[in-house]
């Protein structure tokens, strides 16, 4: 019996969301008095044993180049084989792009109960109940997992990374049958040098109040200063002021950063659905009636073109940047 945590990598680097999944999975294992184990598929350039600091004791590493690129079907079969060998009863994924793709497949293969979008540790006082977001972040549901094997896909940025573990993890080189992927990836296009929106701690977002794409310079400057990703509202993406992958909201990306700064966005209910899991929301809008202020923690009623440049100067002072 163990908790098995899927450690997701991209180009040999372990994703931040997987560190959250590791911390979450090891805490479940600790509470139930069972072992926390990890699984990594593909070649990795980082020190796997060092992941022990997140509390995991043993990591199955299928060091096979055929697994360097994610494929839902191939990964499902590989993970299922390791689940069988490890006797895992709880399997933890991050509910990120790969997790959303592989966890449902694996749940069918193992006839396991699946909860995706989990935001809290399971309540095991009466069964096995996990809280997840529903209605696009407007509510939560408590889901009972009734099957023998349970799969949890943890929402990114909903569980703190815990580095309280001791020592290094035992890395077990593992061979599994790896079939050829039916989906062939022909090109990968990553935005270089920017923080991916889904993994960003801080997000600076602009809306129609900025009047045109030529005014995004201050948004980008503020984002760079804070190490933040940039985002935008739907009308901004629809009019091609900004690329579609920056669109956050009900029909765009749903994000949950620690700090979300909304500039010139009124806060329509559909936009809030994509950002309402942010820990702290700051709204800068010249309209005091903008609905976004009701969902905000901090706000400034003022003209973005006057407020943002001054905000940038003040942050520079605090950060000691000239």
């Amino acid at each position, binding site marked *: 019996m163990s908790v098995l945590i899927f450690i997701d990598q991209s180009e040999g680097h372990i994703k931040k969301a997987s560190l959250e999944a590791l911390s979450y999975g090891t805490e479940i294992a600790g509470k139930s008095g069972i072992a926390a184990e990890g699984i990594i598929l593909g070649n990795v350039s980082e020190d796997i044993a060092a992941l022990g600091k997140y509390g995991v004791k043993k990591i199955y590493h299928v060091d096979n180049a055929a697994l360097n690129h994610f494929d839902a079907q191939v990964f499902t079969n590989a993970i299922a084989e390791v689940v069988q060998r490890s006797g895992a009863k709880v399997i933890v994924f991050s509910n990120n792009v790969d997790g959303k793709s592989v966890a*449902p497949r694996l749940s069918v293969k193992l006839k*396991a109960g699946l909860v995706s979008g989990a935001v809290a540790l399971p309540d095991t006082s009466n069964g096995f109940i996990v809280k997840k977001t529903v209605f696009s972040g407007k509510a939560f549901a408590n889901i009972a997992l009734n099957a023998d094997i349970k799969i949890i896909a943890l929402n990114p940025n909903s569980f703190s990374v815990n580095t309280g573990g001791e020592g290094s993890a035992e890395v077990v080189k593992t061979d599994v049958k790896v079939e050829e992927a*039916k989906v062939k990836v022909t090109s990968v296009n990553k935005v270089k040098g920017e923080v991916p929106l889904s993994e960003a701690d801080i997000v600076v977002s602009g809306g129609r109040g900025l009047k045109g794409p030529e005014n995004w310079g201050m948004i980008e400057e503020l984002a760079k200063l804070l190490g933040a990703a940039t985002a935008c509202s739907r009308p901004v993406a629809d009019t091609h002021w900004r690329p579609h*992958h920056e669109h956050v909201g009900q029909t765009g990306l749903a994000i949950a950063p620690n*700090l979300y700064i909304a500039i010139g966005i009124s806060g329509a209910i559909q936009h809030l*659905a994509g950002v309402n899991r942010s820990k702290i929301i*700051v*709204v800068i809008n010249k309209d005091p009636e903008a609905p976004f202020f009701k969902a905000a923690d901090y706000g400034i009623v003022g003209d973005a073109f*006057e407020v943002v440049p001054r905000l940038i100067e*003040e942050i520079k002072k605090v950060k000691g940047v000239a």
Partner: protein
Amino acid sequence: MKILVCISKAPDTTTKIAFTDNNTKFAADGVQWIINPYDEWYALVRAIELKEKDPSTIIHLVTVGEADAEPVIRKALALGGDEAIRVNAGSGDSYYIASQIAAIAGQGAYDLIFTGKETIDYNGSSIGGMVSELLNLPYVSLAIKFELNGASAVITREIEGGEEVCEVGLPVVVSCQKGMAEARIPNMRGIMAARTKPLKVVEPAAVDSLTSIVSFELPPAKAGVKLVPADNPAELVRLLHEEAKAF
């Protein structure tokens, strides 16, 4: 080319979310039901665009739900599609629903199965993956572009921090999101035609759910916004830095 598009009904995006029966049921009274936006704007409309390119294409819609799902499936037929199948089943978890869809898909020899990337009510993003595993088919999730190239599909999908292009032989299951197609509204001709399009009702396959909803809860109310005067951004920076410790 034969396409199956999975359609779910969902509460309108402006619905006030509330619960009844001691927080165990969604308060559905007076709720305006719509086609789940991802199923409509991206999955269904892309299928219709493919049919416009190649009129020999056949589009079937499938929904799992009781009779109250029929207005939504009729609206989907008004957009396009040749016929609809409603699996006459009440509530179940995503495994139950995916099993019903897979049972329909397994009988239809479909080349493509389209789903939305998730429903806006339960946000499971699981149906596409589950259906593909049940049918032992390849699965491409979070598609933002889709083109046919002979007997294979060229699909652009979202990955963290960018996108990738992949090619896969048919049949394949694809979950669709923004970018796949431009939203459109049904025209009068479509609405009239939808009235006479076949809507088959079939009984569900015997499958047990693997999970169940125990209760719902609403997030705690925000304490209220702390407003800072526009001429004092330094105070906002201080609050974010010292009080919220946000950076």
